């Protein structure tokens, strides 16, 4: 009997002195019990979003440089358009990473609408851009705070770079109704467009920098530690999951299904509602969306959803998502004509891309949602436990 008590004491000592790491490190994230969740959250910023933002800032800088040599008409237009396309492609990867400050303030935790400040499609308005071009107030200190998002951003620059000599406004609106456009004349319009575009590009770069600073600073830390505005790790993980959902609601439904007419766009098909109508970059944007999705899913060089799924025992799911994503990328990269043209002439090709993206989002909505939501009830202790 005494030996037994001694043995118990010894065991107690052993247990008390055991290294903490042996048994800690299993996080409870509501349903998911995995150490990987904390790593995933910590890696989203430095491994995925920040590199993408850094690349975007480089492209935005190149865009600024190209616009500096654009005369507002055909001189240097091709170079500026190419720089814009590169910047847009880079940004489209970030479209799938709307977490925290970049996301919508109405629907996301910690959302501050910063994405809209850089690019606000489909909330675009060519006429508003032309009105601002004619008014020439872009140097005012409150230009960006006093105007709405459809008059600035990458979408506004697109309009300036691809527009012809006319403006996009009806005759009864300014700058037609007050003759301001005509008064400027072709040369005046070109000069204004050039000057305006430079200011817009500088603001895009600035806002990109703001967003990067948030990720490198307070928000990045909040996400990594699941601190305010997140209540717990589950909510933070859900925020990342919701960002991935861009592929479903925007890429698949708005950019593909809507122009095809499968979503109720008001007519049999709506080719003019594609993204990047003027620049013909619709397909390239979708490629970039898929690339961004893949980056966020894999966590870049760090821990991502693939690692989490493997740790949870669902490697096959992770492999399936990656395979489907790669397949969709293959289809998307094979598209060579502008999307609006394809919707009219060869809708089957667009439908094929839509279906390829749907394969990815179905898993997102299905099995991945199951894994996020499944909870195991505790069994009360019974005899012999």
């Amino acid at each position, binding site marked *: 009997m005494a*030996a037994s008590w001694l043995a118990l004491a010894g*065991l107690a000592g052993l247990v008390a002195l055991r290294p903490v790491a042996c048994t800690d490190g299993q996080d409870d994230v509501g349903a998911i019990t995995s150490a990987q969740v904390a790593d995933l959250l910590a890696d989203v910023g430095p491994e995925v979003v920040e590199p993408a933002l850094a690349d975007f800032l480089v492209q935005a800088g190149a865009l600024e440089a190209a616009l500096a040599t654009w005369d507002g008409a055909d001189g240097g237009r091709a170079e500026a358009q190419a720089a814009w396309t590169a910047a847009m492609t880079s940004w489209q990867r970030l479209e799938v990473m709307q977490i925290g400050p970049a996301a919508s*303030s*109405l629907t996301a935790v910690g959302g501050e609408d910063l994405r809209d400040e850089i690019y*606000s499609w489909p909330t675009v308005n060519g006429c508003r851009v032309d009105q601002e071009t004619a008014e020439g107030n872009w140097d005012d200190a409150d230009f960006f705070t006093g105007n709405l998002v459809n008059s600035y951003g990458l979408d506004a620059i697109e309009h300036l770079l691809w527009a012809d000599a006319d403006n996009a406004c009806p005759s009864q609106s300014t700058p037609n109704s007050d003759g301001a456009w005509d008064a400027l004349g072709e040369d005046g319009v070109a000069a204004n467009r050039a000057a305006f575009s430079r200011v817009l590009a500088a603001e895009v770069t600035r806002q990109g920098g703001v967003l990067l600073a948030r990720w490198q600073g307070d928000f990045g830390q909040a996400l990594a530690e699941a601190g305010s505005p997140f209540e717990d790790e589950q909510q933070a993980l859900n925020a990342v999951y919701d960002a991935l959902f861009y592929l479903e609601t925007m890429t698949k439904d708005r950019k593909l299904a809507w122009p095809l007419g499968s979503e109720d766009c008001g007519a049999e098909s709506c080719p003019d509602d594609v993204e990047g109508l003027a620049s013909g970059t619709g397909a390239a944007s979708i490629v970039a969306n898929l690339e961004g999705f893949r980056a966020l899913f894999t966590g870049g060089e760090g821990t991502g959803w693939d690692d989490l799924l493997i740790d949870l025992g669902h490697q096959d799911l992770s492999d399936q998502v990656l395979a489907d994503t790669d397949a969709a990328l293959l289809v998307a990269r094979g598209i060579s004509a502008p999307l609006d043209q394809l919707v009219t002439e060869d809708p089957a090709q667009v439908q094929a891309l839509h279906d390829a993206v749907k394969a990815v989002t179905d898993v997102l909505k299905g099995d991945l949602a199951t894994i996020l939501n499944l*909870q195991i009830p505790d*069994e009360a202790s019974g005899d012999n436990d």
Partner: protein
Amino acid sequence: MDTLVDALLAPFLEPLSRTWWPALLASGAIALGWWAWRRPGWTLAGARQVLTHPSTALDVQLLLGRQLLGLLPWGVGAGGAWLLASHGVRVLDGHLGRPDLQAPSWVATLATSLALFLAWDASRFLLHLACHRLPVLWAFHQVHHSAEVLTPLTFHRIHPVESLLYQLRGALVTGLVTALCFWLFRVQASPLELAGVPAISLALNLVSGNLRHSHAFIRFPAPIERWLLSPAQHQLHHAADPVLAHANLGTWLALWDRLFGTLVLSQAPPTRFGLPPSIRNHDHDLLSAWLGPLRQVAAPLRLAFGHLRRLLAPTAILLAALPARAQEAPAEEEAPQEEESPPPTEEAGLEVIVYAPDGNPRVAGSAHVVSEEVLERFEYDNIEQVLSQVPGVTTRSEDGFGLRPNIGIRGANAERSAKITLLEDGVLLAPAPYAAPAAYYFPMTGRMVGVEVFKGPAATRHGPHTVGGAVNLRTRPIPDGPAGEVDVAAGRFWTARAHAWGGTSGEHLGLLAEVSHLRSAGFKHLPGGEPTGFDHTEGMLKGRVRPGWGQELELKLGATDETSHEDYLGLTATDFAADPTQRYLASSPGLMRYQRSQAELAWTAKAAGGLQVRTVAYHHYLTRRWFKLNGFADGTDLHDLIQADPTGGTAALYLAILRGEEDTTTAEQALVMGTNDRRYHAFGLQSLARWDRQGDRVGSTLELGLRLHGDVVDRLHDEAAWQVQDDALVDPGVDPGVEPTITTDSTETAQALAAHVHEELRLGMLHLLPGARVEVIRGTSTDHLRAEGEPQVDPVTRAVLLPGGAVLLRPLDALDLFAGAHRGFSPVAPGEDAQVQPELAWSYEAGTRISRPGAHAELVGFLVDYINLTGDCTLSGGCSNDDLGRSFSGGKVWVWGLEASAAVEAPLPAGLRLPLEASYGLTRSRFRTAFVSDFPEFGDVDVGDSLPYSPTHQAGARAALVHDRFDLGLGAAWRSGMLDEAGTYPVTGTDVPALLLLDAAASVQVHKGWSLYATGTNLAGEQAIVSWRPYGARPTAPLQVMAGVEWKAGG
């Protein structure tokens, strides 16, 4: 070090544990009770013997050892179960698809709870059976059976290997069953839990768990022992008798023992427990208990190994034993849901509306009357002002004039007054109270001569909404002699009122005609100067015949016409602060028109012996067309958008479109406007019989009521997309002339039979008032937009019994003490699935009243225990068209509070009177379950959240100075802040702040029959936010001053 202590104390502190301290206490109490009843001959010495027995010492050692081992990284737990479940769901989804059961959450919870309980119990039985039948397992299970005395700690007397097997079993079963339940019910698949533990197991653990390992031989009657194992039966399982030791293997259900023939009913307690030394493989100490079974199991292996080694001597055989490393047992998780057991119910009775000579109701329950004098003094046109002085009643303002009253009583959702019973002269007033409870109509308050509010039990005499209460408006009765009145007044904002009535009656005939008109240009303004006001006209005709023999026949005819330029769109907080009376451009087309006609024929008969019967046949018809903004084409939530008050992003652009500052450029941004065209019929026959008898010592009033009612609502809603261009709205119907799309075309009907019986038995100072109400409601719903051949929703018939009762004690003539309880209910609108639950609650009330000439005071405390609180989706609450009329469950909610009122009239010299009134209401509420709801006012609800639009404090006071020639009045009403959505206090910027409103009235008689008067409402000019619903902040009506002339004759 903390973890060590936590682990050692866990068996007593964890709710999951059998020996959780409340379970130990409960078992102790039960054992004590059993001992007191049975006197089994226990002694203190005997008890000491049990506690100091070496067997008990081993129990403790095994408990400590297991807890310490549990801190090392081995063992299987929820990690394994989760893995199994997640794969299980994926396999099921993949092979069988996802079933779309749409089961109500209670079905999912019940099914999951039962499935888990049965699976756990059955699997425990099977493993236990294996432990007794398979020698290798019996070697380890012996450790538990070697106990020679039984205490609750014997529960923990188990070998670690056996513990591991049970954990594996648990993971397997939990994983498989959870997979199946999740596949069927998705996120609703969770068992009913108490304190984070599945409820069934917890209850059983609490009540009988620890008694299984005790010497209290508590038996159940044999028929029960065939289904549920008693503590005695488990003690038999621990008997030293080898036959008994392999019987009663189950944990809770006796079913499995019956199937396998191992069930033994209890008769006499065993004489000895434990195992004979010949069988036992260990001594009474920890090391022996752990190693003994291992040695026994290893013996044959050692023998075989010895042979093998001899055979293969030259070759070294290395056996690497790798202990299975599975995931650690999970840390205890806090359950997200908590439930507390409801308070005990009481049977009591209803009350009868009896008026004391001073005009105040003397009822066994809370009732409040706003008299004609008060209504006339303040010339109230707005029912919200009238009700602000009634404790327990909350109103949510919408248009500022009281045209769209949202009245709630005692926490019942105020939305469109859908949860209270509205009556005019005792007849249902709402356009279709059963088929469309949220359809509102309110007559002109200005022509009413009395407003009665019945809370709690009083409402059960009327129905259909019997949880919160009822409001009864009394129209002007036919005057006894020739009498009439004309009253004309005008005020700010081009507000004007004209009211006239005249009537007379003779011996047999009586007649009254009344007309009233109210109009205003409105206090809000639109950017283009479009109208924002209303005009409302009402007429009533009453005719009465009294042929004699106590009979009376009265016909009431009424007609109403209203046009108002109202819309659902409110303002952002910033815009509200800048100018609270502005309206956005997008709200400018808002226009509502309705017409109503009413016909009622009432026959009253009085017979000898105290019997009265009043029968009313009624028919009401109301048509209503309201054209207004529904929202954006892409479904952006207007309430959330406006409450967020965005300054950046796409959201700010949408706001600019609403203001008309930004053009719409894409299909998503179009403003959807539409007409809701509705027709309502309500008709029925109701009869009330009352029989009064009064003896020397006993009195009785028996009331029987019966009502046959039918109502119909036809809805035809359409909508079209409008654009904003150049600061103006563009109507698509004009050019190119697009036809609006029809979004709703449906007919809902309801037929209801309601009966109530109520008795007041007066035994001296004690009155007993039992009563009951029964409602049988049949609802149908027809969707005319469904294609031919597509089936319609089946008609649903529901019946409900609502018992209730009250007790009244009148120890002194002026003092009443009363208490009552009743079951209340609010029906489900037609078109809902048969499984949708109506709103149900038990209400309790207790109070006291002092009533004597010149003074009246009342204090009532109440508790409404909602078994199921519901929110009905209306567009005005911010719901979408798709969810219109749907009932959303809020689950269990408690609403409790106090209502106090006092009125005194001090007589002064010189013929002056000084009536003073004050009231105070306290209402607290608490959601008792956590859930996420699509009903906008609930949203994300946590346990402990309070109800929205239900202020904690409400207080009011009125004072008047009355003389034959003049009348001066002053009133104040204050309420504390209200939450816009279910949540916790204090209120924030997106909630509704506290509000104080001051009114005054003065009238002077200048000549016989002629008086001049003036009224002021909101004297302080408060412009606070009174509601965020439907879509944005809405203001109180600003300071309003009316001045008028009144002429009265006769009366």
